[in-house]
Structure formats: structure tokens, C-alpha cells
């Protein structure tokens, strides 16, 4: 079996917008498709750098997202600030293990999966590793897919705060933590987006 050849080995580039194949003649930084004027990139520029930067930002945001309260509820039974982990524990203790599990997956498992997965992808790409290239591509697709499910938490808080407004009887207000959590989700999604999966298949020169 002849070894699979990369497009640049054939001196070709592909416009990813209109599918026009162009020569890889100019090695300049910014090339445009002559047909649709889209940018033609052999690989997404600064992909690993951007991914890494956004990943770090996501990890940094994740700390206050968990330390700060995400929601403030007040009612006849008093006032309470709840954090994400505190809320999970409360649901778990109250016997609502299913809801606890759902929130755990959305707000703890998914972000951590993304951190680890993107970190792993970045590390292996840096190393020009040939290890499990197919599996890593699948992993990348999973990361892309699960990214937005983390917004579940944000939506829960937004809905609760909007619906639970009974003045004295009960009221819920969002707190700073949820903004940080939202930032975590957005930044990690951007991080995954800026990762160019083609890098997984690049062979060391």
C-alpha cells in the first residue's frame, strides 16, 4: 500500500470555502482564493497557540466559576448563596441523584473532559506524535460536540432567575459565578474551534 500523501506533498492547497484546488506556489502568509476570495490556509495559522491560550483562559475562569456562588435564592426560609458544587451536593443529599448527576456532568465532567482532551491534542500535536491519530480525531469531534452542552448550567440559572420572582415569597438572582462559568464554556468552545484537526495527521518533516 502506497503511503497516503498529504496535499502539500502534491504542491496543492484547497480553498475550504469553494473547494477550488490551488497550487502551493507562494509560501506567503496570506493567500486568497482567486475564485471566492476566501483565505486559503494550508493549516489554520497559529492554531495551537490560540487553542492553548484559550484553554488556559478557560482553566483560569473555571476557578472562580466554582468558588463564587452562581445563584442567590431568598425566600421565607432565608437567603442562600449556592455554588455549583454545593448545589450538586445538595441535590445528592436530597435524594435527587439524577439531577445531581446531570448537573455534575454538565458543569464538572464536560469542562474537565474538554480541558484534558484539548490539552492531550495540543501536546501530541506539538510532539508530532503519530500515536492513535484516528482516535484523536474522534476525540476532537467529541470535544466539539459536547462543548455547548455545558451551557445547560447557564440556562438553568437564567431560567430559574427569570421564573422565580415572587418578591417576599421567593426570588432567585444570578451571581458572579455563573458569568465565569459561561466564560469557561465560551472560551473552551473557541479553543476547540481554533484547533486545526489536520495537525493530528501531519507527519514530521
Amino acid at each position, binding site marked *: 500500500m502506497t503511503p497516503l500523501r498529504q496535499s502539500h*506533498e502534491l504542491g496543492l492547497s484547497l480553498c475550504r470555502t469553494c473547494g477550488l484546488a490551488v*497550487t502551493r506556489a*507562494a509560501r506567503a502568509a496570506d*493567500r486568497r482564493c*482567486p*475564485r471566492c476570495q476566501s483565505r486559503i490556509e494550508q493549516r489554520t495559522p*497559529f492554531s495551537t497557540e490560540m487553542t492553548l491560550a484559550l484553554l*488556559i483562559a478557560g482553566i483560569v*475562569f473555571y476557578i472562580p466559576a466554582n468558588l463564587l456562588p452562581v445563584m442567590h435564592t431568598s425566600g421565607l*426560609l432565608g437567603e442562600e448563596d449556592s455554588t455549583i458544587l454545593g448545589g450538586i451536593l445538595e441535590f445528592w443529599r436530597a435524594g435527587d441523584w439524577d439531577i445531581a448527576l446531570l448537573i455534575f456532568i454538565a458543569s464538572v465532567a464536560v469542562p474537565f473532559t474538554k480541558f484534558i482532551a484539548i490539552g492531550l491534542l495540543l501536546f501530541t500535536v506539538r510532539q508530532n506524535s503519530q500515536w492513535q491519530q484516528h482516535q484523536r480525531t474522534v476525540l476532537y469531534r467529541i470535544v466539539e460536540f459536547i462543548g455547548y452542552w455545558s451551557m445547560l448550567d447557564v440556562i438553568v440559572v437564567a431560567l430559574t432567575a427569570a421564573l422565580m420572582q415572587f418578591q417576599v415569597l421567593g426570588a432567585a438572582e444570578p451571581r458572579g459565578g455563573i458569568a465565569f462559568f459561561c466564560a469557561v464554556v465560551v472560551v473552551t468552545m473557541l479553543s476547540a474551534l481554533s484547533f486545526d484537526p489536520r495537525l493530528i495527521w501531519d507527519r514530521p518533516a
Partner: protein
Amino acid sequence: MSEPTPSSDEELPTPVVQNRRWIPRLVWAVPVVAALIGISLLVRNWANAGPRITISFLSVEGVQVGKTLVKYRDVTVGRVSAVDLSADHQAVLVSANLSKDAASLLKADTQFWIVRPRIGVGTVSGLETLLSGVYIGMETGVATRRERQFVGLENPPALAHGPHGRELQLQAARAGSLAIGAPVYFRQFQVGRVIDENLLPDGNTRVTVFVDAPYDSFVKPVTRFWNASGVDVRLGADGLNVKTESFAAVLVGGVAFDDGPIETLPAAAGIAGDFSLYKSETEAMAPPDGDPRYVRMRFAQALRGLEVGAPVEFVGVNIGSVVAVDLGYERKDNSFPVIVTAKVYPRRMGQAYEALAAQGKTESEATLATFVGTLVHRGLRAQPRSGSLLTGKLYIALDFLPASPRVAFDASLQPLELPTVNGSFQELEASIGALVKKVNDLPLGQITADLHTDLKDLHETMSEIHTRVLPNAADTLSALHRTLDSANRTLDVESPLQRGLTDTLSESRSTLQAVRELADYLDRHPDSLLRGRRPQKVPHTPAALSSDAKP
């Protein structure tokens, strides 16, 4: 990287080359910003971290770690972070993290207490804790020393959050039904409350009240405090009088104050000092009684209706009360006199007392006893009198009865023994008894028999008159009638006698007129007596009269 040149190179279009200007290194700003935000949060958290304090309570019912708040003036300043038993297991140590601005509230005498619902008649407080759970109340102190360890109060202080006003101490023999938090009234307007009650070592009660500003300016050295608990019902000449400060005061008690009589202003009395708490407004407003003197009285009669507390009046003025009514035994004549002990306040005699004091008669027991001796000599006696015919209650009257028999007075007896006379009502009873006895002793039977014979005689006399005297009287009356008839005829206008008399009278009237004319003429012309009458010139017109008057 080797550059293979495919054969179809010419057929393929060459991408347009532009110079890349935007370098996406800016993406590194994202984690930097994230890190900056995180660090700023940390810094803020660290900067806001306040002190951690420990409060020891005997019981921490309802306190929950992480939930129970510490509040100062209803503002949350901290949260309970731990609840532990003390080393000796006698107390519970509550640890709380306070906010940074609360640090300045932590003085050595800062107070902490657990706020629970408290329901009294006058007030309901802490009701919100029924649902929300307890919280720890806090009241800052005035000490300059800072402290981190506190001993919590078991009951909330009556005065939280330093209202302006004045704290006053009231001394009373008994506090009555006053409760902490009971209202303090000035002219039926609530101006403060009772904040503390203590039993002093001498058995008296000390009531601490707090009068809010600006009403504390009503408290003057002359101010009198009295217990306003309950209802004052009085039946007076102006009808039924029911008086109370407020409904709450009826239930939980209360203290009222007002200006006392001005003339009783003690010299140089400071407001800082204690006040007395009187039992009632009447007592509070009365001039001070001074020290009581005890007197003993020995009555030789039953004193039903004389009770302990009955008034003792001196010439109609209430100067004391009966403190004991005992039965004595007199060996001489085997009698049982009633011994009444009374307490008398000489000061209640008012101006009389001052006059006596000026003469030095109240200086000591001895001079006073001597003075009382002279009064007894002048007829001072104690007498039980009936205060009300309806109830039969008695009071002791000290009055001058000069007619009473002389008695010896022993000025050396302690307490003084006043001579007595029997009560006026009893005397009245005795005289009525004597009267009834006299009436009883009358020979009523004989009197009736005599009266009977007398009446019989009278009857005989009457029948005599009837049979003999009356017919004669009828004859006499008819004769009299005839006489009167003839007299009537004689005096009639038409009778000759009457006519003659009338003629005579007119005749005499004209004669008298002539005489009067003569007298008048003589009066004007006395000379006519000698010269005779001049010819008469009678003026007829006013003109003639005026010409006549000219010369």
C-alpha cells in the same frame, strides 16, 4: 520540505498573495485577562476578609454552620463558620467570620446574643426568625480595647443599638407586676421602657428604666415615678372614675412619671441619682411622709369594722394608718381591751408640723412625747368613728374632746400610748338604749286607766252641754238676730236718722270752709283784725296780674 513539481502545475491557478497584517497573537490577551480577573477576585477576597471571632454561648439552639448570620442593626456582617464545644464542655463556642468593615465594631464590651422569636404582651420581636432560623445579634460597645473572644448573652439586651436617652434607677420596696420591656409613660404618652429589674441585697427592688430622647428632658429632680400597673377605680363625689395609663400597662405593668409638687424640691438634687418608685400616683404626688411614729391605743369596746390599714385622722386630716389590732388582757378587772397600734406620719400635718418643728417640738422622741402630753392634757383623745354607715368600717380619729375625763399620760412609754374614748356611734347607741329603757319603765297601764276615766268624764260633760246649754244658746241667738235686724234698719241710707246725719255733715262742711277762708284772709292780711276788711280786688286777667305785680 522538498517541493515536488507536478506536471499539471501550469493548469492550476495560483493563489493571490496578500501581505498578512493581523497577527493573532492578541489571543494571548484572553488568558491574561482571565488571570487578571481571577487575581483581582483573590485580592478583593483577601482584602475583604474580616476578623474571625469566637463567641461562647450556653446553648446554640438553631444555629447552623454556614447559614446562621451575624447581624448588626439587621445588616449582615458575618456568618457562622464553626460550632464547637468548649474544652470543659460547659459552653458552645461559635466561630464566625465577619466582614472587614465589622472589625471596628469588635470592642471588648461588644455584645452578642442569639435572636429568637420573643412574644410579649407589649412587643413581638424576632418574628422573622420563625421561618428563617435564628441569627446572632450584635451590639457594639464603647471600650477602646479590641477583642476577638466574646461571651454571648443568653437574653437580648433591652436596649440594642444605643438609642439616645437616659437611663434611670428607681428604688421600690416591691416592683409590682413590672416586666422587662414594660412601658414608661409621661402623661399617658409612652416615652421609654423598663430595661432591667434587680433585687438588691437589702431586699428592695431596683428597676432600671430608659427614657428616650427627647423626652428625657421631662425628667427633673422633682420628678416622681409611680407604678402605673393596673386600673385605678375611684368612686368620688363626681362619680365613678376609672383611670389607667394604657391597656398594655394593665397587662404587663408600667411606670409613669410626672413633675412632683414643686415645694418638695430637695436642695441640690441631681438627676443622676436614684428615684423612688411609688405605688400609685396619689402616693407619688403626696408630700413626703418622713419617718413614721408608732402610737398605741387601748379601747375598752369592741371594734368590729376596724381593719389594718384603716386611716388615722388628726382633726380630720389623714396622718397615718392602723398597723395592728390585737386583743389585750387586763388583769385588774378581767377585761379584754382592744389594743390598736397605728403608724402616724407627723409630716403629713403639713404647715402645722413645720410650725411645730420651728418651735423645736419635734427634735427628739422626748420633746415630742412631752408635746403630745400637753395635747392630751388639753383633751386629745383617740376615738373610733364610723367611716361609712353602709360598710360599718371604722377609723381612728384623734380629736380634742375637752369634756372627756382627765387621764394620766406617761410620756416615757415607747410607743406612746394615747388615751381613748368610746366611739361616737357607740355612745349614740348607748343613749338610744337608755332612752328605750326609760320608755320601757313608764307606767303605761296606769296611764291608760286614768285616761279612760278622764275620757268617760269628758263624755258626761259633753252630753250635759248637749241637753241643757245648747237650747238656751238657740234662744239667745234668735234674740241677737232681732237686735241686729233693728240696728240694720236704723243704719239704712233711707232711714230718717241717716238723712239727718247727712244734712248735718254737709252743713258742718260749709261752715268749716268759711272758717278756712277767714283763716286764709287773716293769714294774708293780719291787719284786717284791726282795720277791718279792705274792698276785694279780684284780678281777672294775667295782664292785670302782671301790671299788678310791677310796683
